[in-house]
């Protein structure tokens, strides 16, 4: 309880035109005030008052801004669980080889598994076309200026893409190790792809992504003899952030390690 004006810490309350005065800043047009402090703080709940107008009301919300996305993601998740769909959100920097891994995976598994793909890119239909050529239905989401997919985009894509029961749905996120980390799509598991041409310190530079992933595919293993990538170091860095993260070293080009990836997929889909 705020002792000065009697407002409560939660819920909402009205402020009447009281006779006491604080040094409140007057309400003014659109102005950013970073790092400012207010007259009142209750256990980290901040609020401000203006006492010059009657019938103003503070609505205390303490509402997570990502709650909209998280709610939609939960709906997507229920949709997948209801149909026993294994949904994987593939995230990486641009150029790590996500689409190549998907092409090879589809070619190898499509005779025995139903697979569908949602492709996310800022522009072009190129990736969805590549996926379709490898034999799986695919839909492309172009985010325009957006840097990530969110749960609503996936929900809309699901209206247009037929996803069969017991299938695997791959969502290839926009190539970006920063923003997609924040947005739950409703996936069953998140798979982060890095390639040996990127440098082993990627996990340290983009900790959010590695903290939120379940599996790390280290791609382009065929190039290891030509680059300075230290696989053990990369795994150590990533594990320091996320001890439960699993790793598979693969080459989409030569097929090395891809069997382990398919085994992992089979294990998830049980």
């Amino acid at each position, binding site marked *: 309880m705020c002792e000065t004006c009697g407002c409560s810490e939660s819920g909402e309350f009205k402020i009447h035109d009281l006779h006491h005065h604080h040094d409140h800043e007057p309400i003014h047009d659109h*102005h950013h005030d*970073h790092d400012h402090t207010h007259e009142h703080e209750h256990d980290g709940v901040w609020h401000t008052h203006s006492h010059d107008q009657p019938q103003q009301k503070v609505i205390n919300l303490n509402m*997570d801004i990502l709650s909209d996305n998280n709610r939609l993601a939960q709906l997507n998740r229920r949709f997948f669980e209801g149909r026993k769909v294994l949904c994987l959100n593939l995230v990486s920097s641009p150029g790590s080889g996500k689409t190549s891994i998907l092409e090879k995976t589809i070619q190898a598994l499509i005779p025995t598994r139903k697979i569908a793909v949602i492709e996310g890119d800022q522009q072009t239909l190129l990736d969805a076309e590549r996926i379709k050529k490898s034999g799986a239905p695919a839909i492309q989401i172009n985010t325009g200026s957006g840097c990530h997919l969110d749960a609503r985009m996936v929900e809309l894509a699901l209206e247009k893409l037929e996803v069969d029961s017991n299938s695997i749905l791959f969502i290839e996120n926009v190539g970006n190790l920063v923003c997609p980390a924040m947005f739950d799509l409703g996936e069953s598991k998140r798979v982060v792809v890095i390639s040996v041409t990127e440098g082993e310190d990627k996990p340290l530079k983009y900790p959010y992504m590695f903290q939120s992933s379940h599996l790390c595919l280290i791609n382009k293993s065929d190039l290891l003899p030509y680059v300075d990538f230290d696989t053990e170091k990369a795994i150590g860095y990533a594990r320091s952030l996320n001890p439960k993260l699993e790793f598979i070293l693969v080459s989409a080009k030569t097929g090395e390690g891809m069997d382990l990836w398919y085994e992992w997929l089979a294990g998830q889909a049980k």
Partner: protein
Amino acid sequence: MHEFSLAIDVINLAQREADKNGTRSIQEIIIEVGDLSGVEADAFGSALDLLVKDSILEKALISIIKTPGKGRCNACKLEFDMTQRMATCPKCRCFPSKVNGGDEFRVVSLLVE
């Protein structure tokens, strides 16, 4: 630049709460952005500035409170100021430490008429 889509979420959230409370004008919105939330407070503020036109927040004072990151050492349990998630414990140099505050990203309150 996920700050743009987050700014849109904030405007939608504010509109929804305004409708729920039967109010037509929001005078102030207070938003808390933790230093470890993954949201750049300044970029987010700029995005909101650009997007509020013709929205329920057009005339609102937008107050962004940055909350400092707090860490708690997994080994010696020391609580310390954490400026980035990769911080080592300043006392025992252990790594990693648990984030113990500063990862909030939320609308704290609205001042409505």
